């Protein structure tokens, strides 16, 4: 069995190509009430009164839930700060925040009634929609200081300010100092599956269904809010139809749970795509970078100040800020670094985790600035990166060392893009390197059952939201137990059935849950080895296990054959449990070193239509250091997909606000992402494999690398083609054209 390194058909694939895969919205709970949210046409408003009388007269409507129907004080929740109310109380803080929720027998009745809920509200004029708004001396406070505890920033819109660095940047001499500021806009996840939530009373407990990536976090939050033991909260998490980080953190699960308890029946809330757009996004950022170089192009210092504009509730955004700021200086050898990252509240859609977790924002600024330095120093843009890049095992942050041959990755990308080859007119190339910390803590449990007939069940609490975790865990099991892939079922998505997993994020699952699965298989191997020792009267120590085979001194058996012989005639099964724990390191600035780094080099060649500003992607290359590609096709799928998503962020995606804080381009018509006709003419993803990762078989995490530095690679290519530097994304035709109209003085 050589399951590792192969690319079998995806686990769960049959359901996905036949329409039988059950996503959340496809699950019909008998007798469920339908929920429709009531929202206001502005971001910040004072709620004076809500009159549901007329709405409740619509036939089929059961009730309209408002803050008045919930406990006082309003229960609040969140992964870092307990700041998000179950439903808006007193004031709305972003466009799309629900103020009431209708429960009715049919979707039609719920929708009709939602239009009849009369909300008396006062638009509040001084909403915070930008970093400048938030930091103005007379800015209104987005959050009540009473919710902020002892924070020294409680009287401001700053949640926290992170300080990282080493050395003293003021002590460093430099032949050249460059400085510039860049902006990264608000973009949204746009999973094709909109978010959905259902809940049903379950005896003395509750059942919750959600499109969530982190079912066990949801279970914990629900238990706390409803004062139930974990054992009385059952979370069903069907495979999400795309997550990208947007489905990590609970949103309206508590609301539907309270509604289900009130109704005594299941309730169902499936958001529209437009509503989903109003609930999740990536944090925007304004980034100032200053860096010093020797005449040869060697870094002497880097100074980064980043203002992340998060939304009205913190969600996981403060962690986005700390984690991305920590490694914001990139994979370079720099004697002195100073990084400040601020988490700033605003009256906008709460930002959350999003593929890349803050790195695309900082990477855009840092890599663009390095190009500026190279230009001023007259050094090739590839060479300046190679010159400063940390080499294998070299520390690049005091407590972190390079965990791969990054130079090999960069050189591979340069070669694939044809770096240095002559360029036709109106063309340009760019290259950029990016680095993201993998998980800093982790806890995953897996149970594997080797059944009597030689098939196997794998229990893993990871969410398979497209990355193909089912396939990976099946491959590991096949490799270790010698069970054919088709005979392995991977069970996920039910906290009452599947053991605990901390979360599906940070490209962790193959490494962390994969290790737990492998260890569960090892436990089975050990049990079967003991069976073999007994059956064949051999010392256990003389039996080796390799790829599902038991190697005795004079003969060999398959694990399955031995198991069957030992368990006959009653049958039964052999159960293995595996645990993978990455504990907190209290002294580490992030609470733990990264389990691995996702390192990527992206290179791009573009052609610019100098009259219209349209950018054609002639060639786009991403190379990632993956340790080992456990499933090469899935690695390519992740890399291609991340690259294309990154190209969307780079070329066309952004929220456009009006002056009342409403997102004007909600939905699929005016929020543009790449279609099949917008792809690079040549898209190439490649892996560097040195089997030097911490996961099974030397794997590292993948799936975010290819979008970490898409923007600076493409931006640099556009700069070379046009001679113009653009500091704001996206690089829309209009923006490129405007840059082309500027005269040499930049006016």
């Amino acid at each position, binding site marked *: 069995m050589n399951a590792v390194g192969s*690319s079998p058909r*995806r686990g769960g694939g049959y359901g996905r190509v*036949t*329409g*039988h*895969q059950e*996503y959340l919205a496809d699950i019909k709970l008998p007798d469920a009430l339908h929920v429709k949210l009531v929202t206001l046409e502005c971001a910040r408003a004072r709620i004076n009164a809500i009159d549901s009388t007329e709405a409740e007269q619509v036939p089929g409507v059961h009730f309209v839930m408002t803050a008045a129907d919930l406990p006082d004080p309003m229960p609040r929740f969140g992964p870092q700060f307990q700041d998000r109310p179950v439903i808006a109380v007193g004031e709305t803080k972003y466009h799309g925040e629900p103020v009431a929720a209708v429960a009715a027998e049919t979707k039609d009745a719920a929708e009709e009634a939602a239009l009849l809920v009369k909300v008396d509200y006062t638009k509040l004029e001084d909403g915070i929609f930008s970093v400048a708004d938030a930091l103005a001396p007379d800015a209104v406070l987005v959050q009540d200081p009473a919710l902020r505890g002892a924070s020294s920033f409680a009287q401001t819109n700053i949640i926290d300010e992170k300080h990282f660095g080493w050395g003293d940047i003021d002590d460093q001499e430099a032949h050249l100092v460059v400085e510039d500021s860049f902006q990264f806009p608000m973009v949204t996840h746009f999973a094709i599956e909109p978010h959905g939530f259902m809940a049903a009373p379950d005896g003395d407990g509750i059942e919750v269904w959600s499109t969530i990536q982190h079912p066990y976090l949801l279970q914990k939050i629900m238990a706390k809010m409803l004062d139930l033991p974990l054992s009385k909260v059952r979370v069903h998490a069907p495979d999400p139809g795309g997550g990208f980080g947007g489905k990590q953190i609970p949103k309206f699960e508590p609301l539907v749970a309270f509604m289900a308890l009130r109704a005594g029946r299941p309730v169902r809330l499936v958001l529209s795509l437009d509503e989903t757009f109003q609930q999740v996004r990536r944090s925007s950022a304004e980034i100032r970078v200053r860096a010093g170089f020797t005449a040869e192009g060697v870094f002497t210092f880097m100074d980064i100040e980043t203002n992340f504009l998060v939304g009205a509730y913190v969600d996981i955004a403060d962690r986005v800020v700390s984690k991305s700021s920590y490694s914001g200086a990139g994979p370079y050898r720099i004697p002195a670094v100073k990084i400040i990252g601020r988490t700033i509240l605003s009256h906008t859609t709460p930002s959350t985790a999003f593929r890349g977790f803050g790195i695309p924002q900082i990477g855009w600024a840092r890599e663009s600035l390095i190009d500026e330095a190279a230009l001023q120093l007259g050094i090739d843009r590839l060479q300046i990166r190679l010159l400063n890049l940390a080499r294998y095992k070299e520390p690049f942050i005091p407590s972190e060392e390079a965990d791969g041959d990054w130079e090999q990755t960069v050189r591979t990308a340069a070669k694939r893009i044809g770096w240095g080859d002559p360029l036709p007119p109106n063309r340009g190339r760019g290259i950029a390197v990016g680095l993201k910390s993998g998980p800093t803590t982790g806890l995953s449990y897996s149970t594997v059952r080797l059944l009597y007939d030689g098939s196997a069940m794998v229990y893993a609490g990871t969410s398979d939201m497209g990355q193909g975790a089912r396939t990976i865990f099946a491959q590991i099991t096949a490799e270790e137990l010698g069970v054919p892939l088709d005979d392995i079922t991977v069970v996920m998505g039910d906290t009452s059935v599947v053991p605990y997993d901390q979360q599906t994020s940070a490209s962790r699952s193959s490494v962390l849950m994969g290790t737990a699965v492998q260890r569960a298989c090892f436990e089975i191997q050990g049990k079967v080895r003991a069976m073999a020792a007994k059956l064949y009267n051999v010392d256990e120590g003389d039996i080796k296990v390799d790829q599902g085979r038991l190697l005795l001194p004079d003969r060999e058996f398959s694990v399955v054959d031995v198991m069957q012989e030992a368990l006959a005639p009653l049958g039964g099964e052999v159960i293995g449990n595996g645990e993978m724990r990455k504990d907190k390191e209290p002294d580490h600035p992030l609470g733990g070193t990264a389990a691995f780094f996702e390192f990527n080099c992206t290179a791009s060649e573009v052609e610019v239509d100098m009259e219209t500003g349209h950018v054609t992607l002639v060639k786009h290359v991403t190379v990632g250091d993956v340790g080992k590609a456990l499933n090469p096709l899935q690695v390519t799928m992740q890399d291609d997909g991340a*690259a294309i998503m990154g190209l969307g962020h780079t070329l066309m995606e952004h929220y456009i606000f009006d002056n009342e804080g409403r997102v004007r381009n909600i939905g699929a018509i005016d929020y543009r992402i790449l279609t099949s006709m917008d792809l690079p003419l040549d898209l190439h993803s490649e892996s560097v494999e040195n089997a030097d990762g911490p996961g099974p078989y030397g794997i590292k995490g993948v799936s975010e690398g290819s979008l970490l530095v898409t923007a600076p690679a493409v931006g640099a290519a556009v700069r070379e083609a046009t001679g113009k530097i653009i500091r704001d994304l996206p690089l829309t035709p209009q923006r490129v054209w405007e840059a082309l109209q500027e005269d040499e003085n930049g006016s």
Partner: protein
Amino acid sequence: MNRTLTIETTINGRRRSLDVAVNHTLLDVLRDDIDLTGTKECCVVGECGACTVIIDGRPMNSCLMLAVEIDGSEVTTVEGLELEEGLSPLQGAFLDEGATQCGFCIPGQLMAATALLQQNPDPTVEEIQEGLAGNLCRCAGYEQITKAVLAAARGVKQ
């Protein structure tokens, strides 16, 4: 003139007589009334293609038509693609080429691709990209989807 109407239609080869609300879309009726949930709801403005079905040989967005409009028509949804002997060549190619990731857009992609191959059994890459431009994939498996359609076309030709 009524607010519900009985329509006669053939869905996945099966003749059906359905009482449908006149203000429900075909997508609503497929998913909510007759449990054909393989057809997906996403943008409901005809931009994402997740709700694509084939009506009388042409791919259409089921979110953009009233169910009453299919009276007398023949509808194929993703549930109707599988052949008696198993997955259709296109479905198989989607699995072999890694075209399915989260899978949510896949029913729509399959329907658009099926219609494309019926019209044009030997499409070029550009024709596939054009034919599937109305089907968004945020996992962005476009390269793999295109390869799968090409592979299916080659397989059918052989």
